[in-house]
């Protein structure tokens, strides 16, 4: 599993809009996905990728993860997107229509070639595959395993419902099976699962309800179409104070346990062992990002000294 990275909010920004690109540094989302695909009209594909490259090159004080959604590799733009944008060092590529493991493997190979050419570490560029069709959802397990670069699976409901020839509803019942399958594939491979966008920017209650559902299922983040959505999503993913308090107690308890030479201890009558500690550590890392605790929990506290 890759190093822990908080990804509650992944904000889409159109790659052809200078006024919006220049505001990327100011928003407090965890990641940005600069879009060269659906947001960019055909006539601007070429200009947009050069604009994005310029922006990335002058954005030296990076304060969030930067992903670029390229056009699918079987279009005439996909390869060119990589060629222009990768030298400006995004953190990763969001791959649309990742329907099969083979498509992801192809991107993996291309990224390796670019890394060699650019003389950067192999594996520098991550991959975030979009599972957004019936085929992609069925293949989720294989896709999750198809590259070491994959840090998360993203579920894309808009294209998925189109491929299913159904409408997307406010309650989202029709997405339930697909959401669950993407989750299983991600969790089984120790990577994150990121939920689909919520398109109605004016409906904050709807956004909150959908994010709460995704969180309950096991998703740890959501893709966003407007910066106004960040606050609600962060609120939903913020741990509750009692969860933070309990997590701190768990970490204290396990430290005491280790001093006693054991990996299991009782806390308030409940057993604390490795999985409980892991969950507590996750709560505390999120709490740190929300400013609810002052120090970031260290690896030694979670796993014990080597």
């Amino acid at each position, binding site marked *: 599993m890759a190093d822990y990275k908080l990804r509650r909010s992944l904000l889409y920004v159109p790659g052809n809009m200078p006024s919006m690109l220049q505001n990327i540094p*100011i928003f407090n989302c965890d990641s940005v996905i600069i879009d060269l695909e659906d947001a960019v009209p055909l006539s601007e594909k070429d200009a947009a990728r050069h604009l994005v490259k310029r922006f990335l090159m002058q954005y030296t*004080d990076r304060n969030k993860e930067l992903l670029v959604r390229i056009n699918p590799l079987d279009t005439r733009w996909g390869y060119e997107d990589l060629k222009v944008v990768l030298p400006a060092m995004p953190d990763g590529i969001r791959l649309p229509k990742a329907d099969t493991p083979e498509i992801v493997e192809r991107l993996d190979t291309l990224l390796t070639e670019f890394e060699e050419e650019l003389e950067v570490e192999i594996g520098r560029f991550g991959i975030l595959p979009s599972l957004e069709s019936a085929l992609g959802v069925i293949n989720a397990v294989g896709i999750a395993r198809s590259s070491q670069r994959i840090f998360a699976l993203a579920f894309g409901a808009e294209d998925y419902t189109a491929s299913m020839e159904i409408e997307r509803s406010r309650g989202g019942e029709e997405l339930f099976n697909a959401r669950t399958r993407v989750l299983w594939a991600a969790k089984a491979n120790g990577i994150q699962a990121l939920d689909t966008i919520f398109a109605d920017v004016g409906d904050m209650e709807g956004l909150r309800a959908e994010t709460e559902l995704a969180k309950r299922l096991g998703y740890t983040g959501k893709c966003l179409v407007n*910066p106004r959505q960040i606050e609600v999503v962060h609120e939903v993913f913020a741990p509750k104070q009692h969860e933070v308090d309990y997590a701190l107690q768990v970490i204290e308890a396990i430290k005491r346990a280790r001093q006693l030479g054991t990996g299991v201890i009782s806390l308030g009558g409940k057993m604390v062992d490795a999985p409980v500690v892991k969950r507590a550590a996750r709560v505390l890392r999120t709490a740190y990002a929300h*400013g609810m605790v002052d120090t970031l929990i260290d690896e030694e506290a979670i796993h014990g000294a080597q």
Partner: protein
Amino acid sequence: MALNSLGREIPESYAGRKLVPYGDPYSITPSGKVAARRLRRVNPGASKLLSSLREAIEASGLKDGMTIATHHSLRNGDFLLNRLVAEIAGMGIRGIWIASSSVHPVHAEIIPHIKSGVIAGFHCGVNGLIGEMASRGELSCPIVVRTHGGRARAIMEGSVQVDVAFIAAPCCDEYGNMNGYSGPSACGSLGYAQTDALHAACVVAVTDNLVPFPVVPVSIPQTLVDYVVTVDRLGDPAKIVSTTTRITTDPVGLQIASFASQVIEASGLLKDGFSFQTGSGGISLAVSDKVRGAMHRGNIKGSFGCGGITGYFVEMLEEGLFGALMDVQCFDQEAVKSIARNRAHQEIGADMYANPFNAGAVVNRLDCVILGATEVDTSFNVNVNTESNGYLLHNTGGHSDTAAGAKLSIIVAPSIRGRLPIVRDRVTTVTTPGETIGVVVTERGIAVNDRHPELKEELIRRKLPVKEIGELQREICRVTGTPRPLQFEDQVVAVIEYRDGSIIDAVRRVKE
């Protein structure tokens, strides 16, 4: 020329008056007494009613070279000043000074009368075309820009002597009792007219809504009013009070508002007894919205909301978040309705609101004020008067008054406006001195004046993006580039008077 303490070149004198360069916000102590006017007597049976504006001007004794005043509570919907000036011109009177509480874009109609010499100058700031033409050298008339509190001070100390105050009275009786609460031109508070009514040599109430005696409640009483005259319409209701401004939906504006509200929470001021002022702009309302939420969550009962009042503050009053509203001007219909029905919604005059030379103005009791800016410099000086093209386009309003009075003044502004950086080495014009500004909030970061070290520490502890103001400037300029400095002629087209009467800056003609 003399340099004031901010390094601004101030002429020795302007429009026949010797100028005092600005030194600091709090030191000048007034001497002398409040300016007096003659006693009057109106015997039983005498009528104050006149039939036309011309008759009122004649009765007032207005002559060449005198000074008139109107109030700006009708804002850009005001018809009165234009009609007055046209009437005065028609009567052949010349050399009139205008000492209104503000002049709006709608008053561009009087420009021909400035050119012809009917109007000699302005004892007040100007919004819009008049200032722009003056800046281009196309109008030659002195302009002395004053704050709301500074105007009240100047009239009370007699440095501006108003010969005739024409007070637009939305609801008035034949003996001169008036308020602004009802009628076709209802504007709510008559705060700016209060000082004029008390100190002008002659007071004329002008109304389009004459009602049977007596008007209650009384905002300005009969004892101060010499004449009452009726006109068809005082103004355009649609432009007098705007429909309620909405909270901004612009993500950049919301980001600024979110930072600003977090600054207020971190300041320690947000507790029982909290007092607050904001403007009516979309970002200000977004800040109010977040502060309102925080007050509800913390079960905080504030003391008062102040300033130009919006429906938003009315809701906060009615929800029990404030004990009172101190209202010098109503910004929307909801505020007008509220001031008419709610005793806790108190009308106050500009003197009580913001005058530095009395026994204590309301601004002195403010915890926190949210203010805008067209430019800020690395010494925290703020410009709201001139735009990036150097033109004088805006009046000061209560900006410098509230900044000086409040415990914490917060500037909210987008970091980039019209492709130009908001933070400059040196603002084009200083409106409000940096020593009265606490925090500058932009979407790219928060700069805290060194006068608030504890607040700065707390913001850093809360992981807010605190930056040195120079660092913020460099960051913005990396996006915008550094703008070429404006070029000015030597000719002074306006002076910016600080609230205490000293001169904080001069506006010069733009080199075209």
